[in-house]
């Protein structure tokens, strides 16, 4: 993606892939092989997208979900970073706690949803709890790993110049960990979205997940696909923004 000519080639290829998928989709929609509207035509989806764009309900639900994701990322992310710093900084704590986090991390958090409903109710509280819980684990693990990756000599440089703990944190630890932290944030965001949306589809009264389930139960397939497209687009947008924050694409480091 760096030099001019191959970049153009890759770009064209990507467009071609997208075009092929859309074509196949449209062909399938028109073939009549599948039950009505299971695969709606592109025109219908576009129309549904247009409806969404003018639907005040959609914006209300979008705001609701965005707020839930934002709050769960803030809560789960900051607790995750704090826990990761503790685990990465202390060999004893790391050894004691990490197996739990490691094995709990990949378990589907949705099994805790009933508990969250009991604790936080059917409203945004339980969705935020799900998002925060999902986001905590990858952020904690990546932060701990990032902390251990810090070039040890840089810490000795800081100590030799008598940097105070706060200066060590802001001038050495955090900048040295910027890529793992950013990656953690990105991963954490991804799973927070999953946690929140999944919870919304299970039991809720608002949010994009709720709208998707509503469209589904009314067999409004174009509307459902339009919603999914919106969720995709938003997720990509936020991911790209987080990557930009680091100045560089974090996968390069």
């Amino acid at each position: 993606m760096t030099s001019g000519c191959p970049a153009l080639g890759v770009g064209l290829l990507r467009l071609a892939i997208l075009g092929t998928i859309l074509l196949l989709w449209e062909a399938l929609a028109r073939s009549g092989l599948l039950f009505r509207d299971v695969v709606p035509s592109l025109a219908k989806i576009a129309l549904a997208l247009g409806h969404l764009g003018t639907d005040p309900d959609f914006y209300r639900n979008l705001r609701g979900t965005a707020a839930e994701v934002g709050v769960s990322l803030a809560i789960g992310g900051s607790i995750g970073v704090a826990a990761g710093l503790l685990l990465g900084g202390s060999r004893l704590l790391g050894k004691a706690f990490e197996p739990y986090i490691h094995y709990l991390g990949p378990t589907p958090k949705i099994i805790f949803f009933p508990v969250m409903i009991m604790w936080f109710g059917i409203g945004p509280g339980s969705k935020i709890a799900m998002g925060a819980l999902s986001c905590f684990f990858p952020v904690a693990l990546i932060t701990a790993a990032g902390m251990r990756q810090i070039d040890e000599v840089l810490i000795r440089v800081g100590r030799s110049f008598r940097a105070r703990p706060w200066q060590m944190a802001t001038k050495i630890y955090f900048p040295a960990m910027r890529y793992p932290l950013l990656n953690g944030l990105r991963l954490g965001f991804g799973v927070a979205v999953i946690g929140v949306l999944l919870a919304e589809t299970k039991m809720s009264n608002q949010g994009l997940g709720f709208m998707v389930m509503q469209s589904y139960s009314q067999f409004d397939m174009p509307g459902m696909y339009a919603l999914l497209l919106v969720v995709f687009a938003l997720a990509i947008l936020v991911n790209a923004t987080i990557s930009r924050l680091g100045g560089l694409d974090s996968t390069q480091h």
Partner: protein
Amino acid sequence: MTGGSAGEDGSTVEAAGGTPVLRVENIVKRFVTDSATVTAVDHVSFTVAQGEVLSIIGPSGCGKSTLFNVIGGLAEADEGRVVVEGRLMSGPDPAIGMVFQEESTFPWRTVGDNVAFALEVAGMARAERTKRVRHYLELVGLKGFEQHHPAQLSGGMRQRVAIARTLAFGPKVLLMDEPFAALDEQTRLLLGDKVLQIQQELAQTTLLITHSIAEAVQLSDRVLVMTYRPGRVKRIVDIKLPRPRTAEIIGSKDFGLYVAEIWSDLRGEASLGMKDAEAHLPQAE
């Protein structure tokens, strides 16, 4: 031709002339591992006079870096003490500036901000900081590179940034642990010349740890030879070559004699170290 008296008995070895700035007295450092206790540094004593360059040379694993960390205050000695201008050191101290063997510039900071690091930590005002940074970058020959990032520089230039960063806060003693070890031969020679020039310009009291005999002879007023495990002072050799130490001097007969003399001291220790390394080979992780 041989200089100051020194022995394995651990007697204090006084600086040749002038008042000692740095006094290292009877330093002992042991490492306790599950299997054994290793005495890395065993009753090492010496002094370094104002403006003097003292090199410490010894085979790999003889305790040079351990001594470096103890003198710099990053590791605590089991016995002995370090005194700078009559003040007892405890922990890292602005009187001693360390330059590390490893690549140690901050990759996320520009060259200028790297050099400003210690000043920033000490809370110096920005205007004063900028002035100092400019001065020391010029001193190490990196004028005009302030806005570059370390990744854009060569290894030798990065090591000069590290040296400028340490010199910028004005330490009484410059303490360097094999600062040229990671560099190729030509860069090492050029950087050696540069350090020599800076040292003379600032009359900087310097303690240089190295494993290169030629480097030690070229740069130093005295060379301290360490024994291999436990690391003791084997001998201190006065290098009475005229300054400036130009290319002609390096090619001279006297220079060769000093190198040969130090090598004869070092050779036994180095082969001990090699045997030790070979003996440990099968169990190596």
